[in-house]
């Protein structure tokens, strides 16, 4: 179905001529938007909030990094494997959406399950990376670098846990649902999930370098 | 809904209340001027600060009287007396006027204040007396560099709460003539008309070095040294107050400054040197 832009034009057209019968505000309003646009709008603004959280962490991190006593700690190579796992989960999610669009309900649900599984593997992998660090004697208190590492991975992980919850919810909802609704639900989950994947790559980037 | 009579009364009452507010504010401020006002000015750059405050005060007092007055007048004049309200709700010129006038006033204040601010934070003049002040829970410790005008090194390992509270390194000859004064139990001494730079540090939490008479305030932040400079222009005693919440003793974190003539100051210094 034709979807309107999620963010409608905020400044309506000026009334033609400045006087007379034109109602103020120009064009009449669009009327209530379909649920798809609603969910999309809500999700994009959610991403804005999550992004601001990490902007604040980033600013704090960069401020700390520029101090003369900065000594980075070696980060486990496991993180690269975790990254691949997370990327794969995003791929699996896209696969699920493709299957959903083609109406292949079973394959779609399997792909969704794979996404969730890979997400879970990622989280376990993160915990494993923590344990590797701890075994090397690197805890939150050891150095600012390790502090930020634990902090950023933890906060990202918590959000990913939320994403797993969303996946679980989506799995239940798409059972027997019409294709349009499925597309909306999976689209919403995808926005959030891919955002977390991109966010992870960004975090790894600033932590590793 | 109000009866017409009640509306008349309410309109008059609110108008009178607002007018009364203006009167009370003016009278109250005049009373306050006599007893609850700034302590006498005792520093050189404080003069410009007081002048800027006075100018701002005049502006906001005028605005206060104008706006509260208009409010009082409109509320009384346009109370419901059976008239129909006017549909008038746009007037670009008027709106631009009360956009531009505040903007001009704000710009003028910005420029003046910016100039003064940069002067306040300019480098202290050569020959300024330098004093280190360390804030702690709950008092002030000052250190003078002594005749060699150099501060000795600090060695945290040599800290002792009573004998060496500033953790001076006994091995550093530059520190031998440093003079440490507890400005809470005794006083920090300054010389009248001699600029002084205060270098602030903090031992534990954030404090703030506030001397109302000099119109100065600067936070003392752990992990960094902040500084301000000023020139005391009156002899006498002045109080240091802590102006940043620092714990349960925050209210008792009082210090004292004594501003003396050069002769008195020299005499005081000599006293400190004597064993």
């Amino acid at each position, binding site marked *: 179905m034709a979807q309107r832009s999620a963010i409608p034009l905020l400044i309506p057209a000026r009334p033609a001529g400045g006087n007379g019968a034109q109602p103020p505000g120009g064009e009449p309003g669009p009327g209530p938007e379909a649920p798809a646009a609603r969910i999309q709008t809500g999700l994009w603004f959610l991403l804005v909030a999550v992004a601001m959280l990490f902007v604040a962490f980033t600013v704090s991190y960069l401020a700390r990094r520029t101090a003369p006593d900065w000594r980075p700690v070696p980060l486990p190579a496991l993180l690269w494997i975790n990254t691949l796992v997370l990327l794969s989960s995003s791929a699996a999610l896209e696969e699920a959406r493709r299957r959903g669009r083609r109406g292949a309900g079973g394959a779609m649900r399997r792909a969704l399950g794979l996404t969730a599984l890979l997400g879970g593997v990622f989280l376990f992998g993160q915990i494993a990376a923590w344990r590797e660090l701890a075994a090397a004697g690197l805890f939150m208190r050891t150095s600012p670098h390790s502090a930020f590492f634990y902090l950023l991975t933890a906060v990202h992980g918590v959000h990913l846990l939320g994403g797993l919850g969303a996946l679980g919810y989506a799995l239940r909802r798409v059972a027997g649902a019409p294709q349009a609704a499925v597309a909306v639900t999976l689209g919403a989950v995808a926005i959030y999930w891919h955002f977390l994947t991109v966010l992870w790559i960004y975090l790894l980037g600033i932590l590793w370098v | 809904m109000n009866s017409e009579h009640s509306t008349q009364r309410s309109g008059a009452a609110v108008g009178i209340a607002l007018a009364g507010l203006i009167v009370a504010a003016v009278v109250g401020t005049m009373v306050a001027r006599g007893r609850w006002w700034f302590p006498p000015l005792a520093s050189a750059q404080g003069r410009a600060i007081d002048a800027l405050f006075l100018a701002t005060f005049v502006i906001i007092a005028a605005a206060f009287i104008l706006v509260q007055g208009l409010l009082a007048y409109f509320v009384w004049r346009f109370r419901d007396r059976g008239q129909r309200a006017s549909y008038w709700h746009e007037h670009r010129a008027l709106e631009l006027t009360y956009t531009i006038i505040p903007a001009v006033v704000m710009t003028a204040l910005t420029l003046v204040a910016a100039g003064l601010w940069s002067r306040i934070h300019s480098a202290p003049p050569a020959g300024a007396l330098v004093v280190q002040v360390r804030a702690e829970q709950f008092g002030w410790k000052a250190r003078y560099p002594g005749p060699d005008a150099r501060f000795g090194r600090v060695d945290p390992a040599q800290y002792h709460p009573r004998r060496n509270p500033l953790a001076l390194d006994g091995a550093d000859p530059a520190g031998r003539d440093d003079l440490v004064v507890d400005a809470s139990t005794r006083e920090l001494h300054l010389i009248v008309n001699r600029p002084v730079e205060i270098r602030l540090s903090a031992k534990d939490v954030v404090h703030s070095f506030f001397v109302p008479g000099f119109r100065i305030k600067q*936070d003392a932040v752990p992990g960094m040294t902040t500084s301000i400079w000023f020139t005391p222009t009156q002899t006498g005693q002045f109080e240091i107050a802590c102006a940043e919440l620092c714990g349960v003793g925050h209210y008792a974190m009082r210090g004292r400054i004594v501003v003396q003539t050069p002769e008195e100051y020299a005499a005081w210094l000599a006293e400190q040197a004597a064993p």
Partner: protein
Amino acid sequence: MAQVAHAEAAHELSFWRKYIFSQDHKVIGIQYALTSLAMAVLGGFLAMFIRLQLGWPGQSWPLLGRLFPGGMPDGQISPAFYLSSVTMHGTIMVFFVLTTLLTGGFGNFLIPLMIGARDMAFPFLNMLSYWLYPPAILILVASFFVSGGAAGGGWTAYPPLSALPQAAPGSGLGQTLWLVSLAILIVAFLFGSLNYITTVLQLRTRGLSMLRLPLTIWALFVTAILALLAFPVLLAGAIMLLFDRTAGTSFFIPAGLLLGSVPVDHAGGNPLLWQHLFWFLGHPEVYILILPPMGMISDILANNARKPIFGYRFMVGSIVAIAFLSFLVWGHHMYTSGMHPLLGTAFMTTTLVIAVPSAIKTFNWLATLWQAKIRFTSAMLFALGFVSLFVTGGLTGIVLAQPPVDIYFQDTFFVVAHFHFVMGAAAIFAAFAGTYYWFPKMFGRMMDERLGKWHFALTFAGIYLTFFPMHYAGFMGMMRRIYSPALYAHLRGLAPLNVFISIAAFVLFAAQFIFLYNFFRSLFRGRKAERNPWGATTLEWTASSPPPHGNWGEALPVVQRWAYDYSPPGVAEDYLPQGAPAAAPIRRGDGDGRREH
């Protein structure tokens, strides 16, 4: 229709689903409002402790000492208890009363109704948003009873004081609980903001373009965006501070600290980082607290003046400008912090700039009253009071905006006076105005107007008498968060002033019980309200009082005009509702400067 069937199905809901875990925005709004009211009483009591101590330092209060033995040994308020009172008073009033009431209470109730929607975009998320609030309260209140007592570092919680449990009794477990409670509440605010933004963008009824929105909605909408952008930054800071306290990190704690004689085992952090993070939220937060009032006051003034709000477009522009600029001024809380002086100059500039849209709004409110037909309902009285209080508070902001002058006033009672006028007075007045105005819609009954007038008179006088003299205390240099000014020679003359303020504060607090009595009595015994008792133009008044689940029956209202057709020319009625069809033909030449709509 699906929506009506859904509305009817609501009758099948259990008591729990209808009134407790409701997803109806009206119920959620009322839940927010009532909970905020309870917190306001608590916050008010804490203020009474503060004034008791400042009015009569050193005095013993045996009766209170028996009620609060922990905080008042021998009947004397202890310094730690005093600081906890100050901290919790501020925290509760800012976050747990004003933010929750204005955005959660009024925002939830009004947004769908004023835009012609049946409910918020995400009703389940909305319910979740409210139900994070009571747990946050429980954690916060619990902090009073833990060892060391409630947090005592001020609502600003500057580290290292707030980061080192040994630095003060109030920096113990109480501070941790404070941070956890705030974090939970921030998530509630974020969920709420998502709802408000999406609902205003997507669920406006037909005909309701953005420039036909009432200013209440513009304000709530822009406020929600502010909250969404700003609160996460404080959340980040709170998380880092929690780790500094519990995990040995040093985000905010530098090296070399000594508490007493005990070295502190942290290094590398910067206390100023917290200040930047805190005020990056803290300043937009105060605009979160003043923008919805500005919007509501505009609508209430217009309605009671029977006149369109003056300068609607400039009003919308000002709201947006204030919101945008509010992100650029936070450093004016930090002029003496030790940050680079050039930053001070930059922040001064933006701060003085933000005064301009506030001035525009003030003059537009005045112009709205010009040639009006003012009726003095309780709502209108509080709306007029708002204008007066906002002017007073805003003007003193101009003093504080300039760093050279702020040096003297920073952390003195001049600042306390300033923010009480804008937040504790003006914003609260708007909340009162909104309550008197929308109570009929919320509960289907009218509040008592006579009690309302008494409430107004006592509160208006009480607020000026309590907070105006605080400016004078600031002139003398009386510092904030001071357990007793008596130790300072330069503050010796303050005692009579502090006594006066305290007595005025007691009277002010007592007067609020008139409101409480009126509110609760009217809930059960108030005169039944008609659909549109105030003759208002906006859409919520086309629903019944109170509206059913789903707000309207079969047909949603359709909007034909803007929200301010009061006393429209060429029409017999003294107002035209937004949803009413086009009125009689417009006659040209009906007067200068009057645009026909």
